[in-house]
């Protein structure tokens, strides 16, 4: 088995955009629509400033240390013990996120498309295939992401275009929804997108150079913010703020609503691309989880852990009853729980790196 993996810039960008961009198809938009009504789409846009600062911190920290990815950085800067705890925390957060997200998506697939298929079968198949991807390594996942990137993008652009032409422009007003202050307050919470950018830092050494990581991260950041904002605008234009608050998965409602010429129901056209995107996302998550776990407990051949973790995810994921209602609540709680630590880890890393390199300069 190859333990030293590498990934090209194109593959990295495709992977990042698919991993984070797919968030717009789950219930993330609804969290903001519930609180911000018409102005929900501004949340990602406004939070972009904050995210940009954090991303700048992350990139400049990684650039200072060659051949060190996020995990190495945490170990060198935080020290052996505190670093271990920080990574354990990041690992636990990602693992919980994976369990909840896979459960949400499985619930989504089974309620929206396969009401008669047992949810467990869908869940199990999903984790088997994600496990297969994670076992093959991030290179395989990245290459697959690049291979289908064009199709996913085309499908998404088509869907957005059709949606916007179907929509009502008037639904965007009143522009500020519940007022200026709530918009700003909630936007600050929208920096959850940053969480995933932080985890991409683990891949930074697998890229040809740190410069590529810098370039790739900024591109991913820009594309994802635009994508989510546009999608939220299009949702709003179709449903208006009142009815959208009652929905669970607006993306899937939207693609059921729109039609393309003689084809009345086009959702099945978008469904397969979305599914492959999903597999790539969870495959990458799973890879990162076993990688961090391997680093925490010094397991060299960490990819062998993949089957155990896949099965674990399935069994933990099917625990919640009434997943359609319970899971989003658990998730919004989890987001509140992770935002502050991830941000502070980034800032601390940056500050410590500043001190360390300055100390070195003095010594020289």
């Amino acid at each position, binding site marked *: 088995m190859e333990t030293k993996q*590498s*990934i*090209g810039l*194109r*593959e990295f960008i495709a992977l990042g955009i698919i991993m984070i961009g797919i968030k717009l198809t789950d219930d993330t938009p609804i969290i903001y629509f519930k609180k911000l009504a018409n102005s929900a789409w501004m949340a990602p846009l406004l939070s972009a400033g904050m995210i940009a600062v954090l991303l700048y911190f992350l990139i400049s920290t990684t650039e200072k240390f060659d051949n060190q990815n996020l995990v190495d950085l945490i170990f060198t800067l935080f020290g052996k013990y505190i670093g271990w705890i920080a990574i354990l925390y990041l690992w636990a957060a990602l693992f919980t996120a994976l369990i909840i997200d896979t459960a949400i998506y499985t619930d989504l*697939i089974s309620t929206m*498309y*396969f009401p008669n*298929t047992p949810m467990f*079968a*869908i869940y199990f*198949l*999903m984790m088997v*295939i994600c496990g*297969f*991807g994670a076992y*093959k*390594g991030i*290179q*395989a*996942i*990245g*290459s*697959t992401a*690049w*291979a*289908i990137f064009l199709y996913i993008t085309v499908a998404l652009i088509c869907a957005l275009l059709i949606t916007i032409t179907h929509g009502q422009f008037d639904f965007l007003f009143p522009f500020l929804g519940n007022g200026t202050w709530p918009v700003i307050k909630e936007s600050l919470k929208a920096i959850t997108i940053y969480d995933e950018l932080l985890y991409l830092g683990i891949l930074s050494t697998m890229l040809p150079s740190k410069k590529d990581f810098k370039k790739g991260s900024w591109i991913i950041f820009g594309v994802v913010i635009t994508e989510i904002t546009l999608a939220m605008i299009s949702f709003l234009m179709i449903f208006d703020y009142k009815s959208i608050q009652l929905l669970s998965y607006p993306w899937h409602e939207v693609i059921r609503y729109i039609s393309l010429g*003689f*084809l*009345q*129901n*086009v*959702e*099945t*056209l978008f*469904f*397969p691309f979305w*599914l*492959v995107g999903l*597999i*790539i996302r969870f*495959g990458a998550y799973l890879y990162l989880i076993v990688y961090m776990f391997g680093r925490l407990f010094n397991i060299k051949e960490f990819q062998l852990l993949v089957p155990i973790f896949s099965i674990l995810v399935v069994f933990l994921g099917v625990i919640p009853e009434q997943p359609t209602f319970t899971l989003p609540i658990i998730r919004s709680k989890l987001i509140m729980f992770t935002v502050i630590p991830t941000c502070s880890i980034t800032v601390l890393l940056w500050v410590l790196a500043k001190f360390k390199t300055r100390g070195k300069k003095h010594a020289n």
Partner: protein
Amino acid sequence: MFHRQDKKNNSKDKDLKNNKIPSSLNDTTAYIKELYHLPINKDVMIRDLFLGGSTKKAFLLFINTISDTKIIEDSLLQPLLQNKDPLKNIEDIVCVSSIEEICTIGEAVQETNKGNTILFIEGSTSAYSFSTAKFLGRNIDKAEDEVTLKGPKEAFTETVMTNVNLVRKKIKDENLIFEAATVSERANNTLFITYIKDLTNEETLQKVRDKLNQLNPATLQNLSILEEYMDENPHSIFPTILYTERPDRAAGYLNDGHIVILMENSPASLILPVTFWSFIHSPDDQYLRLVFGNFVRFLRAIAIFVTIFTSAAYVAVTNYHSSMIPPDLLMAIAATREKVPFPALVEILVMELAFELIREAGLRVPSPIGPTIGIVGALILGQSAVQANIVSPIVVIVVALSGLSSFVVGDISMNFAIRSTRIFFIVAAGMFGIYGMAVVFAAGMFYLVTLKSYGVPYLAPFTPKYSSSKNVMFRRLIQKEAYRPEHIKPKDLIKK
């Protein structure tokens, strides 16, 4: 008991072969007679003679069925017998193109088996081998399996020297190397590793040499069998070595820095390392005008998608996603399916099986009764099956479409690969609808992107990225194809 006897005989033969050529001609004759089982063996000839001039005793050894007796008579026997000068060297007496001096009985036998003629001389511990080989074979024919509209028509034949000739004809370069290798000890077939010295990557070349040296099969008939030995993933559905019968194609790959293997008895060549795209391309794509060539490529891409997905999509859509179909079409499908007693999955599988049967039967059937297959296939499986309500007409259309499209991919291995992946998709679609298809697709992609052919990623240069002439899905103007494929690591990246 017999086994032991055989083993004894074998080891005895081996001992004999290791012997140096004795100076006594009688001993040599005895050895040869024993090794060739004379006089049971009818075409092995020993021709005794006295050398002209010196009146030394000597004999010629050859197999008259595989050597050119005219050369032996005119260029060997006549000069040897008529020579008057006892001081003249043998090299100066005979007039054949190539002479080699040999020292052991084993070498003599090996040379004889290759059709050469050996001269043993009384009192000498070495012998001479003269090239007199004449193996019979086909003439150069038209390529039958890889047909092109424009471009050269000739194909490789079973005689390796002809094949070498065909390649040399296309690349007149002193750096074009035909490196001989012998794989099987018993069959002793000649095999040529062909490459252009200042282009091909040494590491890959060494890998190929090592691989060839490692295998020691009892017999090795031809390249189709060697392909399996050389394949790094013999269990894989997807081929990683290109088998082509076209010398122009082999020459094209050589010019890009690939390695070509030619072998006696094989009307083809093996090209390695190759990527997925090599199997999808056809030489015609390059020979046709840019737009038409790319149109053909586009058509082929569509055909691959149709082959893989149509049947599966039909199963998925009718079973799980019926809301997707426009109502009129849905009614039409429902009306035809009404009388059919089987589920859509079974229906499709039965028809796919029938199609594969017709294909295989059509291939194996002796040509005089060939037309029967067409009639039976078309009538029984098409019309009658529908009338008997075994399958619905739309299934016949779906299966026929996917079956027909599969033959747009010319390469036989890739054709099989694509047709077999179809089955995975159909079964997955039957169990999980489009979700199952997406899962199989993702699994296939994960597999393909990690597959390698002698260290070269299967989907390169598409992913991972390498600089190349971008001749992947579509091709560009030939003037713009300035680079050799970087993923095979040629010594010289830029075409000059």
